[in-house]
């Protein structure tokens, strides 16, 4: 038996969103009488942090502390329509809709404050701490809370805003076949180091190094967390996960998720990440979002590393010990390739 080390590389240009039908997202923003803001969406946060990111985006746009913003998601009866959380579109599409809604709400808020302070709304600015000042005259101030109370109980004004993000539907050019299904791309490159046991066919990942370009990382800790976790999801798809593993007799196959292979805490290896920030022009504060490409490039990188290690080119996933051993057998032994 011997262990063969291999290194695999893969890179990805990942489309943000899918413009087949305009890919719309909507958002509604309204203030409560105590000067907090509610963002209502029907996009769902599956755990990747869209709630946190849209909260940051709304707070930044309205000009209030992030603590004063609440995000309500995932009710298509009470929230405005959204295509959904898929295609890595959450930060970009929903974020843009939130900006539009938050801008409108901010506009009404400043008008209400202007009426209270008896100044022009254009002369007002927010300090991000819950106050609205007259520019150049910081003494002339009103809190967002007082403004909301005045709007609600005296002025009869709703501090609210509507937002939608919609890009022109992309049709296929009949002459060239060209189309523009997405509005921007995120990018990544990953290197996987692993070793293959030529007796058992087992593949063990040793280290992952990656560089991700995600626009601006709106919440850097969450980006890092998603990249690390997503990479493991990719490795897991590459090496372990399938609902229908090949067995000569189907009766020997798994019958439930308790026989579905997934990595455990003991399989974690070092993953060094470089996050490159190139803010995208049409993205909310430049953030494109990591999304699905956290996982995608790991699959080809693992496959390439296995080929590098033992010369076996697996073109179906997952790369099971059986496939590796059969490949080694066909090749007449493990051969280091493409190194």
């Amino acid at each position, binding site marked *: 038996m011997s262990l063969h080390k291999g290194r695999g590389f893969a890179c990805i240009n990942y489309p943000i969103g899918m413009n087949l039908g305009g890919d719309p997202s909507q958002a509604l923003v309204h203030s409560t009488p105590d000067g907090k803001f509610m963002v209502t969406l029907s996009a769902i946060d599956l*755990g990747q942090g869209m709630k946190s990111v849209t909260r940051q985006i709304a707070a930044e746009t309205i000009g209030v502390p992030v603590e004063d913003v609440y995000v309500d998601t995932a009710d298509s009866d009470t929230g405005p329509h959204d295509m959904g959380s898929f295609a890595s579109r959450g930060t970009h599409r929903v974020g843009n809709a939130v900006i539009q809604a938050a801008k409108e709400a901010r506009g009404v808020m400043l008008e209400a404050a202007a009426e209270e302070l008896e100044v022009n709304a254009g002369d007002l600015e927010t300090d991000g701490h819950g106050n609205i000042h007259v520019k150049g005259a910081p003494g002339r101030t009103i809190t967002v809370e007082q403004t909301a109370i005045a709007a609600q109980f005296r002025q009869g004004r709703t501090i609210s805003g509507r937002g939608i993000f919609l890009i022109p539907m992309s049709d296929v050019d009949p002459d060239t076949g060209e189309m523009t299904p997405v509005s921007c791309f995120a990018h990544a490159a990953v290197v996987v180091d692993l070793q293959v046991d030529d007796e058992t066919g087992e593949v063990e990942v040793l280290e992952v190094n990656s560089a991700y370009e995600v626009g601006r990382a709106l919440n850097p800790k969450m980006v890092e967390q998603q990249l690390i*976790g997503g990479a493991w999801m990719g490795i897991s798809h590459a090496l372990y996960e399938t609902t229908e593993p090949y067995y000569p007799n189907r009766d020997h196959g798994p019958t439930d998720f308790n026989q579905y292979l997934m990595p455990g805490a003991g399989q974690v290896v070092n993953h060094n990440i470089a996050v490159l920030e190139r803010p995208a022009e049409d993205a909310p504060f430049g953030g494109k979002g990591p999304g699905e490409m956290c996982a995608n490039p790991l699959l080809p990188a693992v496959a390439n590393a296995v080929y590098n290690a033992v010369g076996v080119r697996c073109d179906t996933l997952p790369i099971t010990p059986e496939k590796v051993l059969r490949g080694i057998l066909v090749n007449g032994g493990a051969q280091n390739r493409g190194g």
Partner: protein
Amino acid sequence: MAKTPVQFTLNDKETAVFVDGGANLLDVLRRVVGDLSPKYGCGQGTCGTCTVLIDGEPRLSCLTLAETVSDQSIETTGGLADGPDLHPLQRVFMEQFAAQCGYCTPGMLMAAKALLARNPNPQREDVIEAISGNICRCTGYEPIIDAILDAAGEMRGRVS
């Protein structure tokens, strides 16, 4: 079907319930007692999110017959915080982004609490061993392992 009276302490509180024969502890905690902090994941003892402490030991509540916990002490995530003060494990999990979707978190916290009770100064391998029965789909485990190690350090500092 006849019901069996079962008494135990849940997070130091005397609890008495009538349970159906064959009812598992997870169902009893969630549906009868109303403690929703242990989660139902696979229901087969594979994922670990239903982990509770029984007399200090981590146990899968979905595979534990409720009738067997008479006179025993049950701890769940619901009892970790002291009023408004989060348990160090909870706080460090939150500060260090050791949760994404959060579904595995109650099980991870209870597995970690049991580890730190028997080994206040765990090495990385000890933490991995302690949470090896808990599956996390989102984080890749690293932030969870780091958070448990840091919480251990913090709790040692507090004791000494």
